[in-house]
């Protein structure tokens, strides 16, 4: 059973005070995320990531299409008991202490009273807030709020966790801890759907990623599959005193070190470059493909709609 399945899920908001105009936040989205998967949702600010998360957690309603979570309707209370959600830059009831907040959310999730206290303590420890359990949230820093937000999202041992920009506001140590937490969740068999614009996090954590821009899903797949679609580059190393003139016209970026020259050029110009080396009677030492990063794929997919090369959902 798919953990998340969307069929033509779309959202248009009406904006303006008097004569309301439609503003498309999400174009029809077709996406399937399997159980136990870590899925990264990438896109710049305003791309439609948060709208998608709000649709999947029942905070906003779709204009058209449907979304099913764990095989059931998004609004089904049975589903809601099995999902955890961390909103972007979360705000919580600042009159409560961290412990009281978690207890409140545990009660709302229907957790049995006898298990709640021990579970709250465990979660506070897991996110490094055991010492701040009695502090009111109004005295929390942004990073601490993010931690308590993570704790409330996983408090009730949900099967599916939605995290909207989970690394936001965290220092490098905090970011590493969140990465470890996400990996632990995967080991526990949970499905994690998180949005981010920190590509290195997505690259390191995700089984699959989806790239969204201007409300449209531009591509989805495993990082390796997506980056292989980008026209790659190759690196040539050869023995020469200087860079042959014929290579510069092929878009090569060259670096000379002693009598060794290293050039990086587009893959499609590889044959032409080899021909130049043969003509100049230069000895090729190595020819290796340059690994395409997710960033390059991402940047390439942020072109206006229609020019993209995404594979779709």
């Amino acid at each position, binding site marked *: 059973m798919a953990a998340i399945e969307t069929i033509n899920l779309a959202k248009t908001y009406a904006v303006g005070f008097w004569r309301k105009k439609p503003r498309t936040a999400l174009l029809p989205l077709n996406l399937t995320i399997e159980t136990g998967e870590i899925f990264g949702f990438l896109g710049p600010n305003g791309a439609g990531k948060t709208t998608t998360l*709000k649709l999947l957690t029942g905070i906003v309603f779709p204009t058209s299409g449907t979304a099913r979570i764990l095989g059931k309707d998004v609004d089904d209370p049975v589903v809601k008991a099995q999902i955890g959600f961390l909103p972007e830059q979360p705000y919580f009831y600042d009159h409560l202490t961290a412990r009281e907040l978690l207890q409140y959310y545990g009660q709302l999730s229907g957790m049995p009273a006898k298990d709640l206290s021990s579970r709250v303590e465990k979660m506070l420890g897991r996110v490094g807030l055991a010492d701040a359990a009695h502090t009111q949230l109004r005295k929390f820093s942004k990073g601490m709020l993010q931690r308590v937000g993570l704790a409330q999202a996983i408090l009730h041992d949900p099967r599916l966790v939605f995290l909207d920009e989970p690394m936001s506001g965290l220092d490098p140590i905090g970011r590493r801890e969140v990465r470890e937490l996400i990996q632990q969740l995967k080991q526990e068999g949970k499905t994690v759907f998180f949005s981010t614009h920190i590509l290195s996090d997505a690259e390191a954590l995700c089984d699959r990623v989806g790239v969204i821009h201007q409300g449209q899903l531009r591509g989805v797949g495993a990082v390796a599959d997506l980056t292989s679609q980008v026209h790659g580059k190759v690196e040539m190393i050869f023995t020469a005193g200087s860079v042959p003139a014929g290579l510069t016209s092929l878009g090569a970026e060259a670096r000379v070190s002693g009598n060794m020259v290293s050039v990086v050029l587009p893959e499609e110009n590889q044959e032409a470059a080899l021909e130049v080396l043969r003509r100049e009677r230069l000895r090729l030492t190595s020819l290796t493909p340059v690994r395409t990063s997710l960033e390059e794929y991402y940047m390439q997919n942020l072109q206006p709609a229609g020019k993209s090369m995404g594979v779709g959902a």
Partner: protein
Amino acid sequence: MNSRIAHVAFNTFREAVRDRVLYNLIAFAVLLSGAAILVGQISIDIERLVVVNLGLTAVTLFGVVIAIFIGIGLVSKEIEKRTLYTVLSRPVRRWEFVVGKFLGLTGTLLVNTFFMGVAVFLALWYVAHHLERGDLSITAALYFIVLQFLIVCALALLFSSFSSPLLSAVFTFALFVIGSLSEDLRGFAAATKGIAGAVASIVAYLVPNFSAMNVVNQVAHGETVAGQLILYNTLYALLYSTMAISGAVLIFQRRNLK
């Protein structure tokens, strides 16, 4: 009661207490004790009338101000601060959230009114040196005041479900004022003919009838409150606030939380 509603209600009550809403009791106590001391010095045989009138009017005004200013932010503040996202992503239905918030605020007002009521009785005892059996009717007046709070809270919640906090406050306060004059409005409607009379009649029956719940003057003069009026006012307040809350729920159920 549904446990999720109870948890939301308790959290609302705890928030109000920690936001020092009950501090208004200090201002109330100062006002009432000052008035009692003053009245004790200058009144001749009308101490009871003055203290009961002043005390119950102050209870109403303090409570209405709290009901409006907290009521308008009950849901809108949660949307604005996005605390609602983490609540509604749990197995909490939207109607449960609205009803829980409403009950939390009415609970706060009930506690507030209880302490104010005690203060009124103390002030009365101070100026009159004793309490009479007839003073029990003050309890009925306090009960009617709580019923008014019920309606004001529900209206504040209804208006805030579709308009800005400022407009919601204006609408609710305007309805409280008009509702307090509803007997006069009904009299005007009965005396006026034609379209104006019809419009006045519709408005008079649409606005909450706070006039019927205001027995302050009556109990200040030592008159008793009829059991039938208590029954009618209870039913009326429950019906009116249920309708207003239902309206708020209907709007909130369809609302997109941006």
